[in-house]
């Protein structure tokens, strides 16, 4: 399992994570803020974290699966 966290104070709502997630994990709030709605689909490719221009996304692998 993965845990995707978004720092809203750093996020500028550019939409890159939403657009380019290969498995469409993110939904978008009215103001453009990404919401990791479908976290269960996440393959931990980390492209959202790597591409985020604002260091606002962290993808962490939760304890039990990382073993």
């Amino acid at each position, binding site marked *: 399992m993965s845990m995707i966290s978004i720092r809203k*104070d*750093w996020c*500028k*709502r*550019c*939409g*890159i994570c*939403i*657009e*380019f997630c290969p498995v469409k994990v993110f939904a978008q709030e009215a103001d453009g803020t990404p919401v990791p709605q479908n976290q269960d689909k996440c393959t931990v490719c980390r*492209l959202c974290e*790597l*591409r*985020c*221009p*604002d*260091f606002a996304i962290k993808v962490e692998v939760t304890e039990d699966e990382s073993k």
Partner: protein
Amino acid sequence: MSKIKYDDYLIKEKLPLFWCSGCGNGTVLGAILRAFATLELDKKNTVVVTGIGCWGKADDYISTNTFHGTHGRALSFATGIKLANPKLKVIALMGDGDGATIGGNHLIHTARRNVDITAIVVNNFNYGMTGGQYSGTTPEDSYTATSRYGHIEPGFDLCKLVEAAGAPYVARGSAYNVVQLEKLIRDGIEKKGFSFIEAISPCPTHFGRLNGMRTAPQMLKWIKENSVAISGAEKLSREDREKKFIMGKFTDKDIPDYSQKYQSIIESCTAEAGGGINNEI
């Protein structure tokens, strides 16, 4: 796996970043800091040198030694730093205006001289900070704040330029393909001698807006669709090739760098003069 994380090099107190929404600078900065972490660069022996422009603000967020100089001159400051103390890792961050337009002469000569510096040019095809005027890499026929009727000058192919100038390492990546970009940067830093990495990057605020790509995803798609690997590019016609961003490593060779050659001069001179004094402050 390295214990050092990229955010050890990031000055988090300075965030959120200064750049516009969707600007590729932050993405490239992330790739650089991740490369630093993988290579476990010692902050005290690393100097990041920047010029002026949006990308020239990058040093504000980096916790190594820094030097923030003048527009176009980052490589010259970096040359002095590196040659004065060859044990330092020196990384110069420049934009396309900074590194390849006003600083074009320094770029080709630093490459020719083969000073052991890693130059990372973020190419967003225009002067973002001052409102989106055209630069030396702005593509022909595109629109900028100072080419409202369509740009009539062709843009530089920076990799070809630097390769022709003799640099031992020349590569191009983009803010779209970040995994590749990070790898190209890492290899460049590890390279002894002048290494040059061009990072194609979106500027939705200015270049994008005037060229029908108002959002960051639109710009990244444009970069993606126009990117082709070196192997793929070979199959294209010359005409088609010129319209594409060819991605990958163009040159990767081992030749002695300036400091190494100069050291042998010092050794032969001091032997002759009966031992020299290295007057450190």
